[in-house]
């Protein structure tokens, strides 16, 4: 199904790009324990990307494997949600992003565990545990930072203000989503909007953070229309594959 292929790209590219951003923290974290936590997040996300993109390539049946898909597409062919490609910013911004994203993925993976597509369900079974850990770890930091010092609070509130508008994209559906929902392969994205809101609200409240108001802003990464940030991320990620075509690694 072309719709499932695009859906796998949406998930696979999202975790790929977020994994890529996360790995930029290496060597720059505030404490050694967080160096390891962030490397661990990156490893989990890249692992999920590998499973999803490998499956997507197999489904497409044109001989593209995980690396052909990860490294050799043009920007408009990536379907990651825009939030994943934004620069890391500071530690608060990084943790806010991981918390919001992982909270969504926990719900999504949990639903996908009962996908009519057994392969996707199997991937979900693995990924949901990892997403839960990310949500817990990042959520712990949100609270510490939101309810820490005035400075950490301000940084975390600013991060939430900046990132929140990018979440609306996650819960919109198109024809693909209607078809996949009908086939029992994936839940319609809109079904997760309220549960996600319920999931994140207590932690944000505990962190003394104000939930930003709704906004007409919409990002469109999952349809291949990205932000200006994607165009700087991809050259670095793709460079060796493009500079050494046919290379074996």
């Amino acid at each position, binding site marked *: 199904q072309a719709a499932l292929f695009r859906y796998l790209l949406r998930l696979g590219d999202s975790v790929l790009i977020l994994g890529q951003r996360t790995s930029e923290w290496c060597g720059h974290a505030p404490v050694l324990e967080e160096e390891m936590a962030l490397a661990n997040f990156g490893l989990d996300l890249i692992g999920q990307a590998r499973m999803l993109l490998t499956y997507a390539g197999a489904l497409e049946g044109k001989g593209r494997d995980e*690396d052909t898909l990860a490294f050799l597409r043009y920007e408009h062919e990536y379907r990651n949600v825009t939030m994943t490609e934004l620069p890391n910013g500071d530690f608060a911004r990084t943790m806010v992003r991981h918390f919001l994203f992982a909270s969504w993925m926990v719900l999504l993976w949990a639903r996908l565990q009962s996908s009519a597509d057994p392969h996707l369900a199997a991937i979900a079974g693995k990924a949901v545990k990892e997403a839960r850990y990310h949500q817990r770890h990042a959520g712990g930091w949100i609270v510490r930072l939101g309810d820490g010092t005035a400075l950490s609070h301000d940084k975390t509130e600013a991060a939430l203000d900046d990132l929140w508008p990018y979440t609306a994209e996650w819960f919109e559906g198109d024809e693909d989503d209607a078809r996949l929902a009908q086939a029992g392969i994936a839940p319609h994205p809109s079904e997760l909007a309220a549960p996600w809101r319920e999931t994140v609200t207590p932690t944000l409240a505990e962190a003394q953070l104000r939930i930003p108001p709704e906004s007409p802003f919409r990002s469109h990464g999952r349809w291949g229309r990205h932000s200006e940030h994607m165009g700087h991320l991809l050259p670095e990620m793709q460079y060796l594959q493009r500079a050494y075509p046919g290379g074996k690694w």
Partner: protein
Amino acid sequence: EAYQREFDAKIDRGDFIEPKDWMPEGYRKTLIRQISQHAHSEVVGMLPEGNWITRAPTLKRKAILLAKVQDEGGHGLYLYAAAETLGVSRTELIEALLSGKAKYSSIFNYPTLTWADVGVIGWLVDGAAIMNQIPLCKCSYGPYARAMVRICKEESFHQRQGYESLLVMMREGTPEQKAMVQDAVNRWWWPALMMFGPPDSESVHSPQSMRWGIKRVSNDELRQKFVDATVPQAEVLGVTLPDPHLKWNPERGHYDFGPINWKAFWDVINGHGPCNRDRMAARRRAWEEGAWVREAAEAYAEKANRRATTHPTAA
């Protein structure tokens, strides 16, 4: 006194000295220096390798590298913990590093210029580190020895993965990839040999460290072992080691190798290597930019503590 005799006896018997045991001040200080230097090396060592994660050429290699730096972080944690058993805090140790008082392995003052450097670091740098560390698994200080056992196991795995990535490039890769590997070998070989430290004749700390059971094998011995083990590996890879004097000596039963540029070694130790300033600047920046995070965590912990004591039934 009696404590000293008991200490010496333990060393001679090959028993471990544990944190609760009495130890000479010199022994304690030497271990703090060595263990923390080792910890700092793991942490600083994440920089040259971390430099290539975002540009790793395949998802598999990206994952392997992420796992490697994660392990290195873990090694740093074990080692800081081992050092802390000797009565020093991690913060003190980090501040010593950032002020320039404490050192880290000089090998990390070289730049990773190509993807092949990552594999060569695994092969040669981890290889040399393992050779340095295996004897430390029998180091007289228990916490350090036990940390070494865990670290050596993981580092052997890393070395194999690094070597394997070079094998793929040399056996299946394009001519450009093979040239990349050879160029990386040319740049890392001599620095890797320098990882064993100055010649025995000039090594300041060694005699006392040997007496204390901290150091078990001499610099030159370890260096020779490394060369002997590595030359055949290079032949399998099909790379040339950049030493025209490298040659099997049947009389000695070892490989002869050329003179090491000790001036270059000391220049790098003394801060004038290619990356010394950049490495320290990166570590300082990470620490300073992370201050507000650590302060927030402390502030939150205090608040949580106060809440717990005033409202003992609250979560």
